[in-house]
């Protein structure tokens, strides 16, 4: 790699780090910070969905409902037992992970579209439980007056302060996902997605890894739920309906299925886009639907594939992209389909 590209990359990375670190001070108002906080929560959800769907090929379309499981676990532990956020976060991950394992059980019998339908159904079951178990969950009224966290006596009671918790969880979530997918666990996931029978013959314990993919994605949904509950202090079942899964799926597909950077791009873009689209109300759904169709038809790898294509087309030469002779080597690694 050329020295110049290294410097440019370092500058870009440093600039991005500075913006991330001081974002609450750069933002024009509290509402912008809130949107970015929500985007962070969506990035965590999208990372989980991407791991299960994009890498392991396991259609976990109960993601929104599992997000709800995490939020209700944290919310109820806080309002009923007075437990703090720091205990509720791991607790929400564990509870959601366990429910995720159950949601994943059908994956041992059915796959692809059929699995998608079964997990949608199981998600609906979870949602119906949230609405109807009024004694436990407060029914359609939801759970209110969840307390915001406290960091060693320092109250994290504003969006600006909560931003840093979300930032840390998003960064940790990204690094952990990357680490899991980089080595043999990630390869087993991809083997199952590419060719289930061949994976078995290569000694991959397919049942174990399928359930594992569900548990990990559900645990991410649980973490996102705990963050959501303690940030908004109020949760209700309608937030976790199937439309939330669709929203997460849209951002993951637009960003790039099978690419963690895609989850970050999609997770940042869609919640912001949603704010601008508020004026057109329900027509938003049409925009999401059309964007999914465009992605599926023209760029199955999402925005991330688009940037790679642009870089390879040589028409647009970004300052940080490698020189043509290095490019040739990279091109051979890029999938044709």
């Amino acid at each position, binding site marked *: 790699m050329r020295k110049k590209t290294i410097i440019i990359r370092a500058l870009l990375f440093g600039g991005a780090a500075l913006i991330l670190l001081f974002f609450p001070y750069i933002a024009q108002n509290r509402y912008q910070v809130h949107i970015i906080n929500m985007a962070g929560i969506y990035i965590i959800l999208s990372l989980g969905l991407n791991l299960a769907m994009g890498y392991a090929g396991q259609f976990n379309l109960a993601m929104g409902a599992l997000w709800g499981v995490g939020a209700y676990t944290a919310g109820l532990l806080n309002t009923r037992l007075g437990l703090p956020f720091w205990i509720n976060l791991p607790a929400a991950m564990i509870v959601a992970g366990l429910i995720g394992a159950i949601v994943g059980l059908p994956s041992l019998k059915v796959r692809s579209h059929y699995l998608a339908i079964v997990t949608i159904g199981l998600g609906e079951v979870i949602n119906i439980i949230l609405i109807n178990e009024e004694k436990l969950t407060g029914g359609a009224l939801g759970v209110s007056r969840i307390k915001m966290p406290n960091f060693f006596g320092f109250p994290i009671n504003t969006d600006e302060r909560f931003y840093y918790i979300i930032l840390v969880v998003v960064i940790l979530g990204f690094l952990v996902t990357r680490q899991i997918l980089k*080595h*043999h666990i990630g390869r087993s996931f991809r*083997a199952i*997605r590419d060719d289930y029978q*061949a994976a078995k*013959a*290569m*000694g*991959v314990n397919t049942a174990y890894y399928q359930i594992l993919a569900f548990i990990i994605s559900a645990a991410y949904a649980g973490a996102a739920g705990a963050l959501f509950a303690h940030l908004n202090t109020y949760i209700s079942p309608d937030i976790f309906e199937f439309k939330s899964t669709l929203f997460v799926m849209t951002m993951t597909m637009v960003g790039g299925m099978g690419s963690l950077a895609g989850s970050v791009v999609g997770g940042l873009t869609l919640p912001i886009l949603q704010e601008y689209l508020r004026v057109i109300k329900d027509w938003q759904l049409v925009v999401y639907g059309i964007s999914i169709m465009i992605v599926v038809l023209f760029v199955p790898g999402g925005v991330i594939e688009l940037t790679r294509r642009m870089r390879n087309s040589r028409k647009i030469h970004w300052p940080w992209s490698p020189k043509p002779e290095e490019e040739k080597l990279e091109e051979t690694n890029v999938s044709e389909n």
Partner: protein
Amino acid sequence: MFLKIENLKMQFGGLIAVNDVSINVEKGEIHGLIGPNGSGKTTIFNVLSGYYKPSGGKIVFDGKTISNLPAYQITAAGFARTFQNLRLFSSMTVLDNVLVGMGHHAKTGLWKTILNPVAVQREENIFIEKAMNFLNLLEVADFANELATSLPYGSQRRVEIARALATDPQIILLDEPAAGLNEIETEKLREILMKIQNTGVTILLVEHDMKLVMGICDVITVLDYGKKIAEGTGAAISNDPVVIEAYLGQEDL
């Protein structure tokens, strides 16, 4: 006895694909399995690798009955296989394909992978070194970082064999490894199979290329309509009237 297939029967509804077949495979030999199309060769492979549970009979490997184990445990017990129609992992590089075969030797579980990246990377480096050895043996190391499915057909076949060897098998089941290869590639395959035999791995070979089969197999079993009709050395088989009839039909009609 190394691998013992005892009275194996495989029935799909009304169709009996494999009927009461017994085969003994000795350690270290290249054992050919031949027969006309539909004679049950691939079905036997699928039973051996755990995709089908046999309708009758059993398979004993190294003194243990393996016919009721799930596929991945059969692989762990020392079975590896290739597929008649190539089944490489299409999104992965050649190296990653081979590394998948080594995954079940990994000592690092989920927690260690997350919490101790250094140990995982160390293990990974050992795997990569071993994988490169297999790629060298199969003479496809030059393609290590290329997308597996972008390779020429013959090379893809060899990557499949490398991937199977990576699971560290005692016996390897090759399903028509010479199918679609030209003569030069087939000759190369023959050399590779001898090399594999020399490393101590037993080979069970299904193949239609008679020149290859006759040339390298120590013992050949002939199947027809799911039944074993003959067994012996290449010379004995090729003069057996029952075998000739199965392949060419009856003599005077």
